[in-house]
């Protein structure tokens, strides 16, 4: 990287001159940066003739009546700036790999940013006047004695300047658009036909870069010139045209346009590199891993929280004992992690199954040692007789509207099925909470 720095002690402050300067500087270098507060103009001279660019910038400055302008060329910003500010000639070129040597004999005050007032006496106190005096010290000593400001100054004195004057520009994300003037479209099939065509262009570009789109922006320009924009996301980055068409179709089903569409623009909003997962020869599902991932992605497109993992918790209400959280990656789909599960884990046992919402039932009670317990219940389809009912277990808690108080009975029906019944104390309503299966 080669930097060209144009500096003047009398930098113009009017916007017109700055605009003119930038426009003409851009004719000389692909990237320029103006810092009017500091009175410098930067130009990116990578792979170009830095001296020629500096000379051209000086001519431009002269034509714009910027007085006493000088330029510096170096491979680090600090050396280029110091060369522009402190150099004797109109253009000072610091040869590559000599930036530190160029700075060495100069006073430490030429560095920018200059040392804070509190630091200058400390530096002077130990005899540090030139950049070389500071640069030869080791980092730990500087950090201990002069703190962070001293450390930053130490780096600059060694021509170690990490400023990013010209950040690398991310590549343009793929996009495609089509506009028509002879007709207007309002039918979804027609719009999808065009979107499908645009998708073909976009996914081809993504595929060449081995990238997948995580989200796309779909902008519909209507006949009244209003624009309806929709950002549509996929469950995982993909460059699969069919997946995107399916996702877009489902979104289009929910959109009603106020006027016919005259233009559609499709642009990729977010991308991620497409990666292949490391395979395991002993994983029986490895051969179908890609198909499985695609299927799960399809599923997540239909319902983002469809795949869930259970985390046991200690909530008093039995139906809340499992907290379900989405598992967007579907990691539990890889059965390899369970290889070698012991036979003990396979031993079947009846466990309780709990309804997400307890099902209301009608209950007939019987007296048992001064306690009323369920004897029969009707679930809307038929009546069941309970041969035994254990309970009640009393559960209460919560605050305000979330307050609950319930009695639970574990019963055994005459057909052998074990059920869990609950009674809401506040409403005296009975419900089937679950069963053993």
């Amino acid at each position: 990287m080669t930097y060209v720095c144009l500096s003047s002690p009398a930098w113009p402050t009017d916007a017109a001159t700055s605009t003119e300067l930038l426009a003409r500087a851009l004719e000389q270098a692909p990237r320029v940066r103006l810092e009017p507060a500091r009175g410098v103009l930067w130009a990116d001279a990578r792979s170009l003739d830095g001296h020629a660019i500096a000379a051209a910038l000086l001519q431009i400055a002269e034509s714009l009546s910027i007085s006493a302008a000088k330029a510096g060329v170096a491979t680090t910003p600090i050396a280029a700036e110091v060369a522009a500010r402190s150099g004797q000639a109109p253009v000072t070129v610091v040869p590559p790999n000599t930036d530190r040597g160029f700075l060495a004999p100069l006073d430490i005050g030429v560095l920018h940013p200059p040392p804070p007032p509190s630091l200058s006496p400390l530096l002077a106190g130990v005899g540090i006047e030139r950049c070389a005096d500071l640069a030869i010290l080791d980092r730990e000593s500087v950090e201990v004695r002069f703190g962070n400001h001293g450390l930053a100054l130490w780096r600059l004195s060694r021509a170690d300047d990490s400023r990013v004057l010209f950040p690398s520009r991310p590549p343009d994300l793929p996009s495609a658009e089509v506009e028509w003037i002879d007709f207007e479209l309002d039918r979804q099939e027609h719009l999808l036909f065009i979107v499908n065509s645009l998708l073909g262009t976009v996914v081809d570009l993504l595929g060449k870069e081995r990238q997948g789109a995580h989200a796309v922006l779909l902008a519909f320009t209507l006949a009244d010139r209003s624009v309806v924009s929709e950002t549509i996301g996929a469950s995982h980055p993909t460059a699969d045209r069919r997946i995107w068409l399916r996702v877009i179709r489902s979104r289009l089903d929910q959109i009603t346009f106020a006027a016919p569409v005259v233009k559609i623009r499709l642009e990729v909003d977010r991308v991620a590199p497409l990666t292949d997962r490391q395979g395991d020869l002993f994983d029986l599902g490895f051969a179908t891993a890609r198909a499985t991932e695609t299927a799960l992605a399809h599923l997540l497109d239909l319902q983002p929280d469809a795949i869930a993992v259970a985390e046991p918790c200690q909530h008093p209400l039995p139906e809340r004992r499992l907290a379900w959280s989405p598992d967007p990656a579907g990691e539990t789909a890889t059965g390899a992690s369970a290889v070698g599960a012991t036979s003990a884990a396979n031993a079947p046992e009846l466990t309780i199954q709990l309804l997400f919402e307890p099902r209301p039932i009608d209950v007939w009670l019987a007296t048992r040692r001064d306690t009323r317990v369920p004897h029969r219940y009707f679930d809307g389809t038929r009546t069941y007789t309970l041969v035994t009912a254990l309970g009640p277990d009393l559960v209460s808690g919560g605050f305000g509207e979330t307050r609950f108080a319930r009695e639970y009975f574990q019963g055994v029906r005459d057909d052998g099925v074990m059920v869990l019944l609950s009674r809401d104390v506040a409403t005296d309503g009975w419900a089937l909470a679950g069963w053993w299966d």
Partner: protein
Amino acid sequence: MPAPATATDLRTLLSERFPTAILLPNRGPSVVSTGLAALDRILPNGGFPRGRITVWQSPMAGGTAVLRSAVAESLGRGERVAWIDGARSIGPHWTGGPLVIRPSTTDLARKAAEILLRCGGFALVVLAGLELDPAAMLRLSRMVHEGGGAFVAFTAAHHTAMLRLTSRLLPDQLRAAPGPFGEVALIERVAVRVEARSPGWNAHTILQLPTRHHDLRLSLEPGVADRRGDVD
């Protein structure tokens, strides 16, 4: 070596040359083992058939326990298993295991089953808590055939299926712990009679299954309000 004169000679020659090979006519459809030897013995070919539909027609009668065993067996072999919880009734004793799908609607549950079966990546897909109409079963049968996995659906309806299983608990064979007054205090073990029906096949077995007790009183947690409070 002289060329075999007849197909019988050819089979004989092949069986001598490749003694461990199984001739295609003798090979039955591959299956997914249930992990229970007693149950595998009553199932045609020793498990749930791959590429075919199996229906379990007796909800609330031990089917979930048996299928969880089959799930664990498949996972232990490194295969993928999915459990579609259409009724969202999975209880608190569910730990680890298969990919759990919790669809928000009946239609999504059916679609989820189709997607997972069709992709061919799952050795076993279980659909619970959802009654399917004949048209949906027909679609699913195509998907199962295409994907090649085993599919078990809990349903009370009588659908055409390769394998139909029914189960019922045997109340007279319950083993219970008595309470202080001599009544039943805790069900410890149940007996489940499982019947398997397939074209040309009818068998049954009785499984003894322990019961995991669900104790409501073991849920005390700091920070949670009193749960044994002022009822009455």
